[in-house]
């Protein structure tokens, strides 16, 4: 059997991680809590929440766990690093496709009805603007980005060990702080926010997608040299 399909099968065995936890332990409680609040408080202008973010955070966790647990398992059972990477890439694409379509359907279902309690959970202003295709792309690209963000962080650990992370996080932190300081000093913030708000969510999602592709490529090269 094709080794890439084998890796997908390894992931598919872990339904709990890929499917049940993100939806049942991530999104569902977030929705229920907000639904309850909406039902009790019944705000006149409606309740807008960011609970949708929970599923994207879970996608990052999935990216982290798969490289932490499934990678040493697969490598120990004579599977190539390249096949592991490609199989995982396929699996992430399938899951992101599925998740984004379901989220889109839920957003459609929510519509203006807002679950009868004025709860705007899946269909949010700005994020759900644009055509159906654009809405789907926003959801898909964000989920894809988060998965490979998690995957990429562990890839650094796999390749460079603990020291790799000890160096990477301070560098990102210091770099980010310096950048923020420069932005404040030169008064760039207004321009940045203007630029961000001047573009659609779908276009920003495309940038997220580009970022994810870069993480994926870097992860691939790190994984090729990773040991267990």
């Amino acid at each position: 059997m094709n080794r890439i399909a084998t890796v997908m099968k390894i992931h598919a065995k872990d339904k709990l991680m890929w499917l049940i936890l993100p939806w049942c332990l991530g999104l569902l409680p977030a929705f229920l809590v907000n639904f309850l609040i909406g039902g009790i408080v019944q705000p006149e202008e409606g309740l807008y929440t960011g609970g949708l973010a929970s599923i994207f955070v879970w996608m990052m966790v999935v990216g982290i766990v798969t490289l932490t647990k499934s990678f040493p398992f697969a490598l120990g059972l004579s599977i190539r690093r390249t096949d592991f990477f490609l199989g995982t890439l396929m699996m992430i694409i399938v899951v992101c496709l599925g998740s984004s379509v379901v989220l889109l359907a839920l957003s459609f279902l929510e519509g203006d009805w807002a679950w009868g309690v004025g709860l705007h959970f899946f269909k949010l202003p700005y994020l759900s603007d644009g055509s159906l295709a654009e809405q789907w792309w926003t959801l898909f690209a964000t989920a894809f980005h988060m998965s490979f963000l998690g995957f990429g962080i562990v890839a650094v650990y796999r390749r460079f060990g603990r020291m790799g992370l000890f160096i990477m996080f301070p560098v990102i932190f210091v770099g980010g702080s310096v950048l923020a300081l420069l932005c404040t000093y030169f008064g760039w913030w207004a321009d940045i926010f203007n630029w961000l708000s001047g573009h659609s969510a779908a276009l920003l999602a495309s940038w997220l997608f580009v970022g994810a592709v870069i993480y994926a490529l870097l992860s691939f090269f790190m994984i090729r040299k990773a040991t267990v």
Partner: protein
Amino acid sequence: MKNIVEVKGLTKTYGGVNAVDDVSFTMESGKIYGLLGRNGAGKTTIMHMLTAQMFPTSGKVHVFGETPYENNRVLSQVCFIKESQKYPDHFRVSDVLELCHVIFPNWDQQFADQLVNDFRLPLKRGIKKLSRGMLSSLGVIIGLASRAPLTMFDEPYLGLDAVARELFYDRLIEDYAEHPRTIVLSTHLIDEVSRILEHIIVIDSGKLILNKDADTIRGQAYSAIGQAEKVESFISGQETIDRKPFGGLLSATVLGSLDPERRKQAELLGLELTPVSLQQLIVHLTKQKSDLRAVDFR
């Protein structure tokens, strides 16, 4: 016979220390090898490099005539059962076995089912809830049922009771007879496995110190037991590697082969001759090496 493993000048360095130091050996197809040595000798590291799970600092590794790194032609023929094998958190025993069915081309499901029965492994139990012994059983089952042309077991019996270990050795020999392949057993329970080993490679502190046919090694030494003074006269001028007095008796282990003349001499003195155990001999050999090093340090 074809060489399926060729290792030349293999070295792995961790922070200035040579965990594996200039090791060279070959392995033929259809033999059972013992990769022996003390804890931390470098056995596991060597097997990790044979399966490209670790990278050598220098040296050459060829398995089935090719480099194993990212090479499916090699890796699909290799099954490496290691003590530290990791499993995804929520996997059950049955999940792992189903995946092995897909992963290993020669997997025999019927044999795997039979082994699960023999080892009384609970199929539906989560891997995380298995005892150490059960986890070892799982590894043993995977290694045997995979029927990989090169199967390596790294300390496969941790936590296994004597019955389960005996079961492992029996099944291994039975199946090996029907489906010959190259098997590498890395262990320090040398006496238990000595009867099934055909060739022995001993690693000590990263260095290869012995690489010989098991029978040749067994013939390298013998023990003589009898009255102390008679034994002393028998062994005088011989290289003695071990002597154990008890009461007026002495048991001495001597290096060298037993020719008919020596046998006759022993018989005249009323001494009992016994073959030395592989374990004793290897303990002696590894101890001798470390003694030499201790001298070097002074």
